[in-house]
């Protein structure tokens, strides 16, 4: 086809019109085109041979024995086929409108209220960010009643969370939730019921003031697993470490390094089963529901591995 068409382009530039039935190449003005046109004709004959060979190939194939050629590969699904759930037209229309940004009348039905109490704590970036020494002192006194489970220095030997060095905002939020009933626990709920708002701020400030597990223990810990470093993006699971430490911290979420394994695991399972639901915007419930048991174990092992030395030396 190249042999045929390239000279055509050339004679076109020289001015030869399309659809000519007859062209007198003996004319001196048209003579230079004769060679190009001849090459085109040669190309055309090559194409005729090619077309004949095409049928030869197909006819030759008829001599082969008949056999099952298998499914045609372009007809086989590359990915396993998915059956979409039945979509209602009205819902589809709503989805298209909302995707296109078309305002629609608000629904007249009242919003569904959950059958459990939700957390009412307002978490802000500035929350308890400035530690007041008087508050820390009062907190130290109040914390005596916490010591039996959470340890005198904030390191628990009863699989309760280690509070030493925990973020004040995280402790304060949980105490508020225990008091309001958003989170419930046979031991913590009665303790929190008696506390005033200032008491909670004091206790939280005190524990935040205590030192964390020594940093060098981080070096002894196992290499951070995938779920901690990367999460599982395809299941909408962000990395644990992006909120709970080891990569970054987000306000309101607890520092997990060095927490007891039994505690972390119980909380993840409670989130997954909707037994604990004081997380903001269902963040942890959505994450825990999609975590596999193996991922839970790996994350628990990683975060709790830092607490072992502290417990054996009996802080």
């Amino acid at each position, binding site marked *: *086809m*190249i042999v045929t068409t390239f000279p055509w382009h050339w004679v076109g530039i020289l001015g*030869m019109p399309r659809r000519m039935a007859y062209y007198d190449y003996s004319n001196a003005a048209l003579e230079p085109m004769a060679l190009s046109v001849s090459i085109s004709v040669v190309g055309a004959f090559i194409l005729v041979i090619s077309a004949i060979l*095409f049928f030869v190939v197909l006819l030759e*194939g008829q001599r082969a024995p008949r*056999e099952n050629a298998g499914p045609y590969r372009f007809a086989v699904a590359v990915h396993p086929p998915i059956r979409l759930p039945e979509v209602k037209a009205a819902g589809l229309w709503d989805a298209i409108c909302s995707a296109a940004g078309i305002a629609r009348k608000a629904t007249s039905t009242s919003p569904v209220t959950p059958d459990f109490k939700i957390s009412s704590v307002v978490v802000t970036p500035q929350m308890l960010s400035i530690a007041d020494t008087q508050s820390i002192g009062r907190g130290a006194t109040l914390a005596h009643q916490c010591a039996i489970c959470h340890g005198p220095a904030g390191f628990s030997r009863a699989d309760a969370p280690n509070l030493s060095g925990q973020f004040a905002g995280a402790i304060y939020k949980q105490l508020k939730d225990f008091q309001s009933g958003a989170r419930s626990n046979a031991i913590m709920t009665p303790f929190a019921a008696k506390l005033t708002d200032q008491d909670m701020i004091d206790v939280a400030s005190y524990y935040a003031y205590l030192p964390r597990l020594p940093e060098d223990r981080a070096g002894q810990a196992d290499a951070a697993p995938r779920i901690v470093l990367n999460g599982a993006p395809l299941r909408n699971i962000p990395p644990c470490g992006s909120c709970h430490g080891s990569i970054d911290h987000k306000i309101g979420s607890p520092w997990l390094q060095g927490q007891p394994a039994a505690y972390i695991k119980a909380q993840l399972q409670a989130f997954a089963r909707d037994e604990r639901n004081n997380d903001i915007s269902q963040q942890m419930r959505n994450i825990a529901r999609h975590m596999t048991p193996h991922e839970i174990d790996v994350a628990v092992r990683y975060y709790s591995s830092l607490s072992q030395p502290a417990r054996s030396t009996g802080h």
Partner: protein
Amino acid sequence: MPIGMHHTFADPQVGAGFKFIHSAFTALVAIPTLLTVFTICASVEIAGRLRGGKGPFGWIATLPWDNPIMLAVTFSFIMLGFGGAGGLINMSYQLDATIHNTQWITGHFHLIFGGAIVIMYFAIAYDLWPHLTGRQLTNLRLMRTQLWLSA
């Protein structure tokens, strides 16, 4: 996309504004074409490197050249490249005046359709034929000869 007026750039009855719009839209056809050619070439390069090809051009040698479909795709892209380059002149409102209604147009059309497209029809026929007849096509050498002559 409306591009049909690129056939009538020399017709005085068609408004110049419409001609300009259709010229611009015709030029935009180059974008999806380039994307297609780029992605297929990139896929082929990845396959060539997975087969052990090294260096800027070494991967080309490792491609399955005894497979007629490989040959057909290559010829198709070469002819599409030349045809596309010539097409830029047809598309241009000004340059079109030089070649309007000449054998250039015949050459361009046959290079694109009779070359780039029909050679893929051949390749598809070779691929599909055994599934229609239940008989294997085994003469790969003759197929390659046919494709060489066709290109």
